């Protein structure tokens, strides 16, 4: 992309020791994120997208977790930073927005006070009145009307959409450089979702905020992302720019995701293309490609685990984990249906 990356993740592996053995939740995940860029991480439950994000900000540290690899923020290694450093970085450098705005605030404290507390915990020099003023401005900047009065409300007095705005305001309170949004609109109605996506888009452009958007909704991805990582069973199976992923998808799992969407802009098919079976257990992964048991195009090479490689001469940044050649993929994709039929432009 354009500027030097602010966040750089290399060969991240996160495993959890369980009674049934080591569960490798994230394996060999690498990516860079530049200021002003929106990177979408797409995948189903159990694909490792949330664990990846949580590990970056130190939320998966525990006795039974094994974390390897490197996460560098502005050149500083986060994986071996101590807890005090992480506490400082969370909020000041990296803000996080969670899926459920209902459970992310403390219900017995006024919203404004929770954010004022966060600001003052990071910077003791800020007086109460000054912090309060800042929260009012933050509320205004994320589009909460009557900010002056609303900051004295309790979380239950806010609607879902307003609560999500308040959460974004809290994540932005310390002016972080990176924002991680984990399914920020999944719990919201579509009309509210559209507003929140606009807001994230504006913030991203005005402040040059680097954003990681975690979602399972490809429609949301198409609206805001610059680049996309598709994850399956803890690994990145395909990565590329937004247009590369949507108009020339290379991995059969990505085709499956695109095919199973119900689209309002197309005539409805008689039957929805579906992906057979269900995601594998991370404790019992098939040998080779983890998508193999569900893939209609499995062949002799698949029991061998494919590397994440650029297989297209014209797009060096578009990488995937599938043994099929690009020509075979394009041919098979046509057979599967209306998936990425147009060439990327």
């Amino acid at each position, binding site marked *: 992309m354009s500027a030097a990356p602010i966040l750089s993740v290399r060969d991240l592996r996160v495993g959890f020791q369980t009674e049934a053995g080591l569960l490798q939740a994230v394996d060999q995940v690498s990516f860079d994120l530049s200021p002003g860029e929106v990177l979408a991480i797409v995948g*189903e*439950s159990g694909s490792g997208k949330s664990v990846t994000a949580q590990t970056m900000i130190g939320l998966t540290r525990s006795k039974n977790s094994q974390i390897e690899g490197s996460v560098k923020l502005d050149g500083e290694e986060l994986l071996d930073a101590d807890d005090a450093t992480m506490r400082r970085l969370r909020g000041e450098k990296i803000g996080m927005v969670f899926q459920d705005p209902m459970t992310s605030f403390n219900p017995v404290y006024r919203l404004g006070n929770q954010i004022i507390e966060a600001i003052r915990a990071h910077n003791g020099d800020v007086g109460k009145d000054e912090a309060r003023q800042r929260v009012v401005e933050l509320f205004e900047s994320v589009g909460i009307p009557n900010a002056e009065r609303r900051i004295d409300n309790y979380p239950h007095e806010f609607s*879902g959409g307003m609560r999500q705005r308040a959460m974004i305001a809290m994540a932005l309170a310390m002016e972080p450089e990176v924002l991680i949004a984990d399914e920020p609109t999944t719990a919201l*109605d*579509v*009309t509210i*979702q*559209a507003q929140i*996506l606009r807001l994230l888009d504006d913030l991203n452009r005005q402040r040059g905020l680097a954003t990681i958007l975690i979602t*399972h*909704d*490809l*429609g*949301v*991805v*198409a*609206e805001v992302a610059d680049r996309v990582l598709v994850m399956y069973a803890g690994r990145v199976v395909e990565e590329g720019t*937004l*247009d590369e992923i*949507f*108009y020339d998808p290379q991995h059969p799992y990505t085709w*499956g*995701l*695109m*095919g*199973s*969407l*119900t*689209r*309002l*802009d197309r005539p*409805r*098919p008689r*039957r*929805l*293309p*579906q*992906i*057979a079976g*269900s*995601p594998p257990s991370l404790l019992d992964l098939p040998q080779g490609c983890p998508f193999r048991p569900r893939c209609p195009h499995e062949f002799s090479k698949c029991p061998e685990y494919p590397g994440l490689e650029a297989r297209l001469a014209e797009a060096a940044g578009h990488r995937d984990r599938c043994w099929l050649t690009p020509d075979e993929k394009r041919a098979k994709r046509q057979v599967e249906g209306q998936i990425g039929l147009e060439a990327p432009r």
Partner: protein
Amino acid sequence: MTPLLEVKDLVKHFPIKRGILIDREVDQVRAVDGISFDVQRGETLGLVGESGSGKSTACRAVLQLIKPTSGSIKFEGREIAGLGRRQMRPLRREMQMIFQDPYASLNPRKRIGQIVGDPLKLQGVARGSDLRRQVQELLERVGLASEHYNRFPHEFSGGQRQRIGIARALALKPKLVICDEPVSALDVSIQAQIVNLLDDLQDELGLAYLFVAHDIGVVRHISDRIAVMHDGRIVEQGTADQVCEQPKDDYTKKLLAAVPIPDPRESRERRGQVASR
């Protein structure tokens, strides 16, 4: 021909009460405020709307799980609004429900065989080895294996649990199945499987669905006709393609415009249009 289900001017208001000794009714929540629709045999009517639009309340009122404030609900031409529990019992065989959350809608202490078989037992349809055989057939019909009979819900994934919920709903061979957000808690790749299963079952068994969801894409795919709910009222009703392609009501238009299009170029174009307007 009389429709299978005919709902007329259905109203459900919830009172808001204040006061300590004397419960004074100070206001009402007009959850469902006079809606009318019908469902024909073998047909799917989609009911869309955002949270709080009253779609779940409407479903529950139809099933008499809550008492409607006023209005008429006719099933096969017979008035059922106001019927008591006992009078409703034989009708329960004809109308079943599939719930949203497959993690909350199955009793974790019961085996699958019992969960699916209980409706048959309670209604006195089958018992003993006959019951077991019927349940195993149902499990296979919804894409599970008959060996799953003795397992517990926690051994199944979300999609499989939803299949169990479907098997339970179909056990009594109902004519109408009310599906309240049946796929919204599932992963995308599993949603398509469940939608296709519901489609197949409808073709095979001649079921009618009242399909409630907030995802217009899914509703359009499965429905013959769609009714759009907003603030307790139906603002628009028509065939699925009519409502989605030539919406007449302003709210329907707004709702459709808010659905993200999974196509970057179209999405950019649309945003450009919105910005220049």
